[in-house]
């Protein structure tokens, strides 16, 4: 550490000194590696032990011990070789055991400072800090510190996000939303439930296959359920899948969202804190906020609940493990609560997302019904053609069954999708709603609109419909008003963002 590249010796005048990661990180890493050793070692050990207990102990134990020792050594060296510094205008990180790297991020460009602490990190009172500029590229824009003391993490967060903007904003700081345990009831309504249920069966069969027991497992299950008949057995299998799915989605939801709190902090930062085992703290500068999106997946919507997502710039999507949830400001909660939180986040008295919207022309319903019928026809036609070619009665039966089941469902979804279409202006916000399986109501700041696209297919042209898309730097980059009457849509766009379409508009 006395080499000439030692950054600690640079500009001694700086009042911001170089700091090291927390020494407790070594212990946390050891616990992590120990966990991996147990998870990997026990099955391996059992496998070898079936042949020889002696060899099982002789191979697994020394390997685990070596892994733990290596972890201690590597982590110690890594901690000694890692330094970071927060200066007046930059955050700098110097790291690397073999290859030294030095990263410097301008404080001005920092958009988020997230703190994460998994259970093995949490028990030692430390947190992982991720400082992100939200700019493209996996490496360029972020600095990750694993790990620093909890107080140090909080201090970094507060220091980096507080830009000291005393611009006379109303002091609306404080708690915006708090977790209510009864929200847990919405968790099983998500698409995760069937996915987890099916996934569990898949996993069992996959593991059984590794041990060449797949046939055995199936015969064993068949024997167990044999007395119930085909329908009874199927019902039991489906019910078991549902139970697994429900338990799984509940567990995931509780782990992700337990103890959720949404706060507005001085300096204009929204902060989400949540998590049962792994505690996460996610920050979002209000300055980056361009609106909110109220998301209602079908199941959750039927139960009268909705989720609130932030529409913000510099929220990097993709690459991150937790990416989908970073923009979520409120998990599925009763609709009234969601509207209230949406309004509070935007500093509005009434939520733009709860305003009445202008419905779209009936021609839009026709389009949706035609799409739905076309979609429902695909499996029916495929099954019919295959059934005819292979002269298989089973396939033909499946064809009419899928027609009987599919057509009404498709029609219902189409009509629902049409009813959900709507747009409107609400103060500073442009509001657009669409979707049935996933109904989305977006409220976008009018000043956040950075472009407009108006799109017409041949069929839309014939029926006088148009899809108006507002582009924005935030969120998914574009939000659309689908199948609005062409003249009405243009008038709406012109009113929402005055002057943008300007010279292109004319009266027929």
């Amino acid at each position: 550490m006395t080499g000439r590249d030692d950054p600690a010796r640079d500009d001694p005048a700086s009042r911001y000194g170089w700091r090291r990661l927390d020494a407790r990180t070594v212990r946390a890493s050891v616990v992590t590696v120990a966990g991996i050793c147990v998870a990997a070692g026990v099955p391996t050990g059992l496998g070898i032990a079936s042949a020889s207990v002696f060899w099982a102990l002789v191979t697994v134990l020394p390997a685990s011990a070596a892994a733990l020792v290596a972890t201690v050594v590597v982590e110690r060296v890594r901690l000694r070789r890692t330094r970071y510094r927060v200066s007046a205008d930059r955050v700098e990180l110097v790291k690397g055991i073999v290859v030294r790297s030095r990263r410097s991020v301008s404080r001005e460009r920092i958009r988020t400072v997230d703190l994460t602490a998994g259970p093995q990190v949490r028990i030692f009172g430390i947190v992982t800090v991720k400082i992100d500029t939200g700019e493209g590229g996996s490496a360029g824009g972020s600095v990750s510190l694993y790990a620093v003391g909890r107080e140090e993490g909080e201090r970094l967060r507060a220091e980096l996000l507080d830009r000291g903007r005393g611009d006379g904003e109303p002091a609306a700081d404080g708690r915006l939303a708090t977790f209510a345990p009864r929200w847990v009831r919405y968790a099983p309504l998500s698409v995760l439930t069937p996915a987890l249920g099916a996934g569990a069966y898949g996993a069992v069969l996959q593991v059984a296959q590794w041990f060449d027991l797949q046939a055995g497992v199936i015969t064993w299950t068949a024997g167990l359920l044999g007395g119930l008949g085909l329908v009874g057995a199927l019902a039991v299998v489906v019910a078991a899948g549902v139970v697994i799915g429900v338990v799984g989605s509940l567990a995931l939801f509780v782990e992700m969202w337990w103890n959720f709190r949404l706060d507005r902090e001085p300096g204009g930062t929204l902060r989400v804190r949540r998590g049962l085992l792994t505690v996460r703290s996610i920050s979002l500068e209000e300055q980056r906020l361009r609106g909110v999106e109220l998301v209602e997946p079908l199941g959750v919507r039927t139960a009268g609940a909705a989720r609130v997502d932030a529409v913000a710039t510099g929220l990097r999507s993709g690459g991150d493990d937790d990416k989908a949830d970073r923009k979520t400001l409120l998990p599925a909660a009763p609709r009234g609560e969601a509207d209230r939180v949406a309004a509070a986040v935007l500093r509005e008295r009434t939520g733009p997302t709860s305003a009445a919207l202008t419905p779209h022309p009936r021609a839009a319903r026709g389009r949706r019904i035609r799409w739905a019928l076309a979609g429902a026809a695909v499996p029916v036609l495929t099954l019919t053609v295959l059934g005819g070619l292979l002269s298989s009665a089973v396939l033909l039966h499946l064809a009419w069954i899928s027609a009987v089941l599919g057509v009404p469902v498709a029609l219902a979804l189409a009509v629902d999708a049409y009813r959900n279409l709507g747009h409107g202006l609400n103060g500073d916000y442009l509001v657009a709603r669409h979707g049935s399986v996933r109904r989305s109501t977006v409220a976008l700041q009018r000043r956040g609109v950075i472009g407009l696209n108006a799109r017409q297919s041949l069929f839309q042209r014939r029926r006088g419909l148009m899809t108006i898309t507002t582009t924005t730097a935030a969120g998914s980059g574009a939000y659309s008003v689908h199948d609005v009457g062409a003249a009405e849509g243009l008038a709406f766009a012109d009113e929402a963002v005055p002057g943008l379409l300007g010279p292109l508009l004319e009266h027929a």
Partner: protein
Amino acid sequence: MGESGSRSGELRLRPPVHRVHRTAVTWWRARILLAGAVVVAALVVAAVLLPGVVRPWLLVPAAGFAVVTVVTAVGMPAWWYRVHRWEVTGDAVYTRTGALWQEWRVAPMSRIQTVDSDRGPLEQLFGLATLTVTTASARGALRIPGLDHGVAADLVQELTETTQATPGDAT
């Protein structure tokens, strides 16, 4: 165009003023024929090299593909030429593109981030260029294909100067 005096009728979008360069039709045609020719040639070569049994399975699609290519090459570029329009005012860039799906796009000057002009080998041959104007939105880029090379270069110059004069980070 330009009948905005009458306030009686329904609101609608007029086409932007400028067409793309007339040569663009030939360029589009050449591109379609070339792409089609590659596929047809591959199928024919395969048919010649492979045993006779599979030959019809390759030659029939090749013939079909050739017909589709020729029909597209004759029909679509003329349609595209009628639809593709662009206009630059002091405040914004406007484009209209497409055929079956027509799309008007607007990017206000103050939100433009980059202006590029690209020239593929075929475009160079025909003296054309494609102009791409991007904004901070991941989905807001405007493209004007088939511009005269000189016009495109002037546009890049003009737009770059205008947008540089505009303060802010365009988000």
